[in-house]
């Protein structure tokens, strides 16, 4: 009982313990803010990846596999786990950009209708009419807000959804592609995180003509065409002759993952299948030379192929759960087509059925390592608070030496005296950590506003949307991380309190009573 009374009394009548609590608060807040922002960055990266690539991908690269429609059907029949599945082709190629640069591109052949069921295609499309500016576009300069461009934006959005663009002569929709917003260099990322293409606002890019003059090619990418150079590979893995595919651009995508926005192009699946010789092909037998009216007979059919099936999980199903499920479905499907599709054991052994996180393991690991390192460094730095508490407690125990003697004289045990100080440390830890978490919560949830204020008033800009890619600083606190920081703050205080508590407990009571 006396422990509680003394803890409360010391805590409410002294300034020093409040300073110690303040130190714990600042350390706890510092660690949690950094952890939240960096952790939020990773979460955002993973969420963006999942939004563009689904929860699980079943891939057999380049050659691909046939009978994918059945696999999609079997996956979608597993309604407890699977929300939707879609076949796609993923291949590498070269893209000829408007300024004649040739860049390596990840070309993804998708069927707009089925792909939209797995991926948030409307969300990926960048050019669409906007009613409200994005958070950092305080002056509303985003061209998507421009009333004069509204119709253009609406048309680009419609075209993007169907992956078509009206033919300028016939007016009929023809297949079109969706390029990454960072790919061509015609859309310039602005400081506020939005994109500008209007020549009056951005530096022009141009290309040199044979006569040495330069032509300027700025403008709206969905008005232009792109040409892809492809390397078809047959079902046996042999390279067929190079192919070229020129298509109009329907829209540009912005996924939130820089690598995808820089490299990925979405092309209608049927067009890509045809160019890559992955569509269904029929071998025709020779006609009967004696019967000119006899029809040609199909001697052999080679079914169409895709390289990948992307799968979206039902809400509440984790990507890892879905992956296990997809492996099981794949095994059943493979049993139906044994010898004609990649074996289930091969797929499993090579992790060819994987989550987005597995696919991006390298970058995820790198970011996770970075977070771990920063949090560890900050934790070490925060240990200075332990020494601060130790110093404060040491001074307080010295000041309270006589109290220790009094307590011992009225029968308090050594352990009881130690517990007074340990408990005191605990109280400071709880108080400091609680305040620290509160402070961190207030800062993290308002971090963008604080950052904007710092930028506007002091000219301090730490998070540049045009560098970090996400327009806003992540502002979510992971409750588990908060729990760790809370426990860490308390542990830190206890560590600081233990040595002075031990000192108090081992004091000679007679000397303590005589202490001046």
């Amino acid at each position, binding site marked *: *009982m*006396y*422990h*509680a*009374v*003394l803890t409360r*009394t*010391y805590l409410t*009548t002294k300034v020093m313990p409040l300073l110690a609590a303040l130190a714990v608060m600042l350390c706890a807040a510092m660690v949690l803010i950094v952890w939240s922002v960096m952790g939020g960055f990773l979460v955002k990266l993973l969420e963006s990846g999942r939004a563009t690539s689904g929860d699980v991908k079943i891939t057999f690269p380049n050659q691909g596999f046939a009978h994918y429609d059945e696999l999609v059907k079997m996956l979608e029949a597993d309604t407890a786990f699977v929300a939707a599945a879609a076949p796609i082709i993923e291949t590498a190629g070269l893209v000829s950009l408007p300024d004649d640069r040739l860049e390596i591109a990840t070309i993804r052949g998708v069927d707009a209708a089925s792909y939209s069921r797995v991926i948030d295609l409307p969300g990926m499309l960048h050019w669409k009419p906007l009613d409200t500016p994005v958070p950092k576009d305080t002056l509303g300069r985003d061209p998507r807000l421009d009333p004069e461009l509204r119709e253009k934006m609406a048309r680009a959005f419609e075209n993007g959804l169907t992956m078509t663009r009206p033919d300028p002569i016939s007016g009929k929709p023809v297949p079109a592609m969706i390029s990454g917003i960072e790919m061509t260099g015609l859309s310039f990322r602005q400081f506020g995180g939005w994109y500008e293409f209007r020549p009056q606002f951005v530096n022009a890019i141009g290309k040199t003509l044979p006569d040495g003059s330069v032509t300027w090619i700025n403008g709206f990418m969905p008005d232009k065409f792109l040409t892809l150079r492809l390397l078809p590979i047959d079902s046996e893995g042999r390279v067929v002759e190079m192919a070229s595919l020129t298509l109009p651009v329907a829209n540009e995508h912005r996924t939130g993952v820089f690598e995808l926005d820089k490299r990925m192009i979405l092309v209608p699946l049927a067009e890509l299948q045809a160019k890559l010789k992955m569509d269904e092909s029929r071998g025709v037998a020779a006609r009967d030379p004696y019967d000119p009216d006899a029809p040609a007979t199909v001697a052999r059919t080679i079914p169409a192929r895709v390289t990948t099936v992307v799968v979206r999980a039902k809400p509440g199903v984790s990507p890892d759960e879905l992956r296990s499920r997809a492996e099981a479905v794949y095994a059943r499907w493979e049993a139906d087509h044994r010898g004609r599709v990649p074996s289930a054991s091969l797929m499993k052994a090579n992790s060819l059925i994987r989550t987005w996180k597995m696919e991006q393991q390298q970058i995820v690991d790198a970011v996770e390592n970075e977070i771990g390192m920063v949090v560890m460094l900050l934790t070490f730095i925060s240990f200075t608070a332990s020494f601060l508490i130790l110093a404060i407690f040491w001074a307080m125990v010295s000041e309270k030496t*006589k*109290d220790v*003697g*009094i*307590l*011992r*004289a*009225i*029968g*308090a*045990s*050594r352990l*009881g005296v130690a517990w007074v100080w340990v408990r005191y440390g605990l109280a400071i830890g709880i108080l400091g950590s609680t305040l620290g978490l509160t402070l961190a919560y207030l800062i993290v949830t308002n971090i963008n506003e604080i950052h904007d204020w710092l930028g506007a008033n002091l000219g301090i800009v730490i998070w540049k949307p045009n560098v970090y890619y996400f327009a806003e600083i992540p502002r979510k606190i992971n409750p588990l991380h908060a729990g760790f920081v809370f426990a860490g703050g308390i542990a830190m205080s206890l560590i600081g309190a233990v040595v002075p508590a031990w000192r108090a407990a081992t004091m*000679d*009571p*007679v000397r303590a*009573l005589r202490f001046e």
Partner: protein
Amino acid sequence: MPTTDVNSPMVSSAAGPTAGQPVLRARGVRKTYRLGRVNVPVLRGVDLDVGAGEMLAILGKSGSGKSTLLHLMGGLDRADADGGGEIAFDGRSIRSMSARELNDYRCSTIGFVFQFYHLLPELTVLNNVCLAAMVRWGRLGYSSRRAGIEARASELLEAFGLGGRLKHRPAELSGGERQRVAIARALINEPRVLLADEPTGNLDRATGSQILDLLAEHQRRTGLTMVLVTHDNEVAARAGRSVRLVDGVVAV
């Protein structure tokens, strides 16, 4: 190692009790302090009996070892390990008590009063008095007895003329009032022995006299055993019996 029989007859008439059976008995008590490389013997073989219900004054000059003897009797300090003699309470050697038993002994059996009051400055008068009961009963025990303990503390303080000062802090009290609070704290657990170390040493004569009156009155009323340590003959004269400590031994 020489041994001392704590139950043996009195060795000095000056150290023997005049009232009741001995409740505290010291035999051949020695205590040496080490100051740097030098051993300083403070007690050189004290024999002393304190009878139940007795009010004994231990008289001596500064440095004669009287406070040390009080601390040893109260279990706050230990006599020399080698040939340090024995102090027994109710026939049981204090040296044989475990740390826990010694804590209980200081808490429940002994009540200490010090020259400089030794109150906790941040606590109120009431909490200072109840502190000893908190230590004795622990959280649960104290909570269940809280009302009774606080009533007794108030009663004691009322009896000592501090009824209106329960919520005050020690800094708001005079020296005499502080000492009365310290006495109330020493009495809250109804100890069997009160050990007072120069209880009036820090007070003016009139206030000191009031404190002694208060102690004498309480002793008369309750029959509490009291040992007063003082260097003042007049204070010693207020006790039922007094012994003089000279150079670490009881003067015959």
